[in-house]
């Protein structure tokens, strides 16, 4: 069951709104409707948000994205259409049931933080629970936990006025997290923060989402932010959704010129990460492998180095062609005694900008590892530059890594040293 399902949503302000909806459905233009005194803000928007997904709604100011968000929790009444949150049909609820739904299933983070200046940070974080009628001791304990999640537990007794912008929004986030609702609505939550803090908050949100598995509907006017955060993105223009898709889909097949214009501004170096450019991990060479066999395979694949495993899925180090050749010459029975180069590790979330330096050295291939150091994939030479330049990725099947027993092909070929 989807976490949120919106179907045919309209929001029209002004006079004779129902008539305006009918006319828009019949294909009337916005200007046409405007002339009759109605102002359409959201026009025929439908989408589905799956549980655990970060769904980003991206659009310029006036595109209707904030209006759309406010219809998802009933702060604004829909003019036409339905909203389902979980099993409940939000648009059919009365005031009281709607309040209950907001208390129990959804919370919101605001652009200008909307912290209550007369309450302490802790009381701010505990607000949702207080409204829900949770007893004082429990709600304070849970608010304290939420503050700890965002790293502000030391500030519980302060007033919001004493915090910086980034800290204020962390309190805003803690207030939403303390409510422990499955759905989080975030309205331009990071737009008022300066770029450095914004980046930090984005990282923190991604981390929190990975560990807590919340469903998040995130509004932004910043495509870079949308690309960084979104599992899927809906791009809005003049009240309509012009495209919904994953960041890759949108980058590769923009729906129209409007979306294309936006993409021109995307900072690919910050949007794309190692996950986007890595290819499937080659099989690690066991330390026990015979040097002569390894060397033959390397030459077949014209590859300058191989990754040597530690037998547990981690990379112990990198053996260069010269080192393997030397091992063959000395008649070593295996690679075990070989002097290995240390691997160059990055994480799947490392941005392309941060990948440039590791990728620039040509001694050792760049390996992508998970939290436990296990190999996820490698970044082929040239892939970083290709992605930055907007060259479409080859289809995954084009990477022959898995067919390669030694795992040499996917690595950087050291053509320079080979002459």
């Amino acid at each position, binding site marked *: 069951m989807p976490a949120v399902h919106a179907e045919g949503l309209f929001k029209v302000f002004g006079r004779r709104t129902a008539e305006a909806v009918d006319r828009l459905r019949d294909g009337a233009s916005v200007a046409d409707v405007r002339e009759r005194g109605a102002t359409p803000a959201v026009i025929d928007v439908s989408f589905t948000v799956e549980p655990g997904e970060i769904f980003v709604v991206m659009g310029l100011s006036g595109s209707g994205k*904030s209006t759309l968000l*406010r219809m998802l929790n009933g702060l604004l009444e829909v003019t036409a259409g339905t909203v389902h949150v979980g099993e409940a049909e939000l648009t059919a609820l009365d005031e009281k049931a709607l309040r209950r739904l907001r208390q129990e299933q*959804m919370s919101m983070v605001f652009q*200008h933080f909307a912290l*209550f200046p007369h309450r302490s940070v802790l009381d701010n974080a505990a607000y949702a629970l207080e409204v829900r009628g949770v007893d004082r001791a429990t709600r304070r304990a849970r608010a304290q936990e939420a503050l700890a999640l965002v790293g502000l537990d030391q500030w519980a007794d302060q007033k919001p006025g004493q915090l910086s912008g980034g800290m204020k929004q962390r309190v805003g986030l803690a207030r939403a997290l303390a409510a422990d609702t499955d759905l989080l609505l975030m309205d331009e939550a990071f737009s008022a923060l300066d770029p450095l803090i914004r980046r930090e908050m984005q990282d923190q949100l991604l981390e929190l989402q990975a560990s807590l598995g919340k469903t998040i509907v995130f509004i932004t006017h910043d495509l870079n932010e949308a690309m960084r955060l979104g599992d899927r993105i809906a791009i809005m223009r003049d009240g309509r959704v012009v495209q919904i898709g994953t960041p890759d889909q949108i980058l590769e097949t923009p729906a129209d010129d409007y979306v294309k214009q936006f993409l021109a501004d995307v900072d690919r170096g910050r949007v794309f990460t190692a996950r986007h450019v890595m290819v499937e991990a080659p099989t690690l060479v066991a330390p026990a492998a015979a040097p002569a066999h390894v060397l033959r395979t390397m030459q077949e694949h014209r590859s300058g180095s191989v990754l040597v495993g530690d037998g547990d899925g981690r990379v112990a180090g990198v053996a260069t062609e010269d080192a393997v050749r030397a091992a063959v010459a000395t008649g070593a029975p295996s690679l075990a005694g070989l002097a290995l180069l240390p691997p160059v590790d990055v994480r799947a979330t490392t941005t392309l900008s941060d990948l440039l330096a590791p990728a620039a050295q040509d001694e050792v291939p760049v390996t992508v590892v998970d939290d436990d150091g296990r190999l996820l994939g490698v970044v082929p030479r040239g892939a970083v530059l290709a992605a930055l330049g907007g060259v479409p990725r080859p289809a995954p099947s084009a990477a022959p890594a898995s067919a390669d027993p030694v795992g040499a092909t996917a690595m950087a070929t050291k053509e320079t040293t080979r002459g």
Partner: protein
Amino acid sequence: MADTVFRAAEDGALPQIPVGDWIDTGFDWVTENFSPVFDVISDVTEAGVEGLRDALLFPPSILLAVLLAVLGGVVRSVRFGVVSLLGLLLLISMRMWEPAMATLALVLVSALIAVAIGIPIGIAAAKSDRVSSALRPVLDFMQTMPAFVYLVPAVTFFGIGLVPGVVTTIIFAMPPGVRLTELGIRQVDQELVEAGHAFGSPPGRILRGIQLPLALPTIMAGVNQVIMLALSMAVIAGLIGAAGLGGVVVTSISRLDIGLGFEGGLSVVILAIYLDRLTSAFGQQRGRLGAIPSFLSRGGSVGKGGLAASSRSADAVTPVGTDQNSPNRPAR
């Protein structure tokens, strides 16, 4: 010659509208039909004011003066306490203590009633644009109609004496209480109210927990204005027989007694300054007196920053600078 032509044309062109006659008829009708109601109001009010006056006069005057000065010292500053003690002692020495306490009782009762009626009306006006726009001309009327005009109908309803004084004072003093309550609530950042809704707060809880605490400095500025207007009207009410400093001033006018008039006037000034500084201190300070707003919101108390901003405005008639947050963010 042209002048007379115009005048003749004007007289002929527009019929005379007997607004005065209609008002007279209306008031007669009200008097005839509702006199029992007025009697009850009259009795209750009189008992309230006289009771309070007697209570104020019960302790030795010097003891009460010291107590009032100590209150001032605690709420505002030691310096203010000392100055008000000197002023209050001067009242006693001028033999004006008794009329001053009668006026104080009248002012306090009138202001209390005006605030008790005005704040709920102000809340209603803040919640509904329709109420607000319907109310505006009524408030303008109440505030700008010359105060003396109220006196006559008040006398026809309640007779000469204390009660018409209280009633006219209430009418005259109420508008700033309504206006500043409305302003204060409307100034509360819309995003904060929205946050309340987004977490499922019912409207009453949003009012008590968010809007009123944040509007409190502005509302207190309104209360301060109510008290000051009540004091000025209480003096005018001396004309229709309300006792106290107003009576003293009226007597001095009828006798052309400059000295007595000055003593009465000076007493009003002393009382006014004391009440103004005291009530504006209530609006801006909570540190020394404990959390004044805590009766509104159990969760917390108004931050110092917001109150500091309003301290300037508490003395001004229009508190332009009382914004808590960025005011009037356009509604989305």
